[in-house]
């Protein structure tokens, strides 16, 4: 226990009076205020965005999320704001990203905790740190000018080979410009890899030494040790890490806006252009007015709600897993 819990009440000469005690109170209230700022900002985000988006919610009702048509300036009749196509784009690109990023991240985390020779560990961590440091807009620039054109022949080849297969072939439909769901997913995969890796690595490193040694002592190969001791122990934490990655992927705006193609589109074809919620906001915000602006802010509200939900769940999962592991260490 710290000494603060034992006020020297018995020796009044040691207590200070007046301004100094006031200083303590002011200081603690001030720090509490800055701490509460976080809660205030989150609350304000919710209130202000919902209020500002209300005209669009009011006009569209539930159709705002079930309608696939997004037509801000129709030739006749009222504007239609349906977010479904963009929600689909967000979901598909994020899922592709996780499909690639999760195995790679778990692999790198295993490399760092179980496999890497000491002198390779530092450089490998640096690679991950640098990947995290590259601004997303630079990945977007690279994606639109280098990756998308370079992938067209590969997409074409995949379309030629797998396109004929019934059902599965529909994923590999006709190829356009190279700016599509698939490219967006791949770029996102690069961007979420560092976050998933760093959390997964922390979780793996809490696996008790004794568990791993026990597995090895029983004659397990390194892989059997990983499967039998590391994975079961860290499953919860890895799930949390993946969810955090998902939250990141869903909220990523700029890189996706550059490489997803910019079409209002729901299709199984991964090689077709689409759009995501975050990307639509940044692409169309400058030219919007009135209800159109409200609808874009409405997309932001949906995005905010979804990412906060996913993040809260992920944090709870990670915390619970960490607490359990600390318990087993003792």
């Amino acid at each position, binding site marked *: 226990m710290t000494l603060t819990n034992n006020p020297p009440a018995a020796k009044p000469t040691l207590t200070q009076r007046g301004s100094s*005690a006031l200083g303590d109170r002011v200081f603690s209230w001030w720090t509490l205020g800055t701490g509460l700022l976080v809660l205030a900002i989150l609350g304000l985000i919710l209130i202000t965005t919902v209020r500002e988006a209300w005209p669009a919610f009011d006009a569209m009702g539930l159709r705002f999320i079930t309608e696939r048509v997004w037509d801000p300036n129709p030739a006749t009749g009222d504007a239609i704001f349906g977010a479904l196509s963009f929600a689909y784009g967000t979901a598909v690109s994020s899922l592709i990203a996780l499909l690639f990023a999760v195995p790679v991240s778990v692999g790198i985390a295993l490399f760092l905790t179980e496999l890497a020779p000491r002198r390779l560990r530092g450089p490998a961590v640096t690679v991950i740190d640098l990947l995290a440091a590259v601004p997303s807009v630079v990945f977007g620039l690279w994606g639109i000018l280098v990756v998308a054109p370079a992938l067209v022949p590969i997409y074409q080849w995949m379309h030629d080979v797998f396109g004929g297969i019934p059902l599965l072939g529909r994923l590999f439909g006709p190829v356009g410009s190279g700016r599509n769901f698939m490219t967006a997913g791949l770029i996102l995969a*690069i961007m979420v890899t560092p976050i998933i890796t760093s959390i997964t690595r922390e979780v793996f490193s809490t696996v008790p030494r004794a568990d791993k040694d026990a597995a090895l002592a029983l004659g397990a190969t390194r892989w059997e040790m990983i499967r039998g001791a590391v994975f079961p122990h860290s499953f919860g934490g890895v799930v949390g890490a993946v969810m955090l990655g998902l939250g990141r992927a869903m909220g990523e705006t700029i890189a996706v806006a550059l490489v997803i193609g910019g079409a209002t589109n729901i299709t199984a074809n991964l090689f077709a252009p689409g759009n995501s919620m975050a990307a639509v906001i940044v692409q169309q915000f400058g030219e919007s007015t009135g209800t159109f602006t409200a609808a874009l802010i409405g997309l932001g509200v949906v995005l905010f709600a979804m990412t906060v939900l996913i993040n809260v769940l992920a944090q709870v999962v990670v915390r619970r897993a960490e607490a359990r592991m600390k318990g087993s260490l003792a």
Partner: protein
Amino acid sequence: MTLTAPPAARPAAGGPDLTRAALSGRRRFTNHLATSAIWFAVLLAVIPLALVTYTVIAKGGGVMSLSFLNEDIPNSYRREGGGMGPAIVGTLLITGMAALMAIPLGVFGAIYLNEYGKQRPLARVIRLMSDVMTGVPSIVMGLFIYISWVLLVGEQTGFAGALALACLMLPVVIRSSEEMLRLVPDELRQASMALGARKWKTTLTVVLPAAISGITSGSLLAVARAAGETAPIIIVTGIVFSPNWNLFDGSNTALPAQIFRNASQPFEAAQDRAWGAALTLIVIVLGFTIIARFISSRFAIKER
């Protein structure tokens, strides 16, 4: 080296054959496969990093010059030449202002969490919510500042951009500073208290200085991340073609926003400027990152 042998200090096997030769082919194969897959995963992370770095340096280096860093941005994407001067000014001013707001507030928030709140329910909620806040998409933060500041003052300004970046930095600064404060040994606090110092004085003159290197490096990393944020800048700061040194009056621009606008143009001149801006931005961001890592490795409190 056998794959099965755990680290040293293993008594040599006497009776049964415990070497790799005793493993069944299938088990040995699976182990090899898994090991190769793990190495392959590392390779997969290195490739994009190498490719991005190479392309940015190759293409950005081609347009880089003193005049590129100085000159105004052409007001037509089609036009050749020109530079990114206004965007560099904007990035430095906006990020700097954001840091001035977010870092002190964040550090005080961290002081609350580590010195006062500890494991109280309120502190746990704030901790959880700061972690959640780091996951709030930057575009949403841009919309928030647009509604609560730009609509209020009636124009897009550099300061609005700084506000948005500050909101994005705040939770990162809080959580990294708290980690650093936690590393400060309790004996230091007790010694200061025993000498009769008040808690606020102890915190400001003993605890904070002890953790300052870690806090600085964590904050610099947050600044580096913020400097690369694009979406909020596009929404709340507008655009200018010549430098605007006043954050509170008139639109501004920043490097990430310029990269975004130029990247989607079909004109070679615009794309060249985008690459040049990308190189400049990466140099700035990496500069912050390297300084941060240097400080943390040079002056860090050793974890006990």
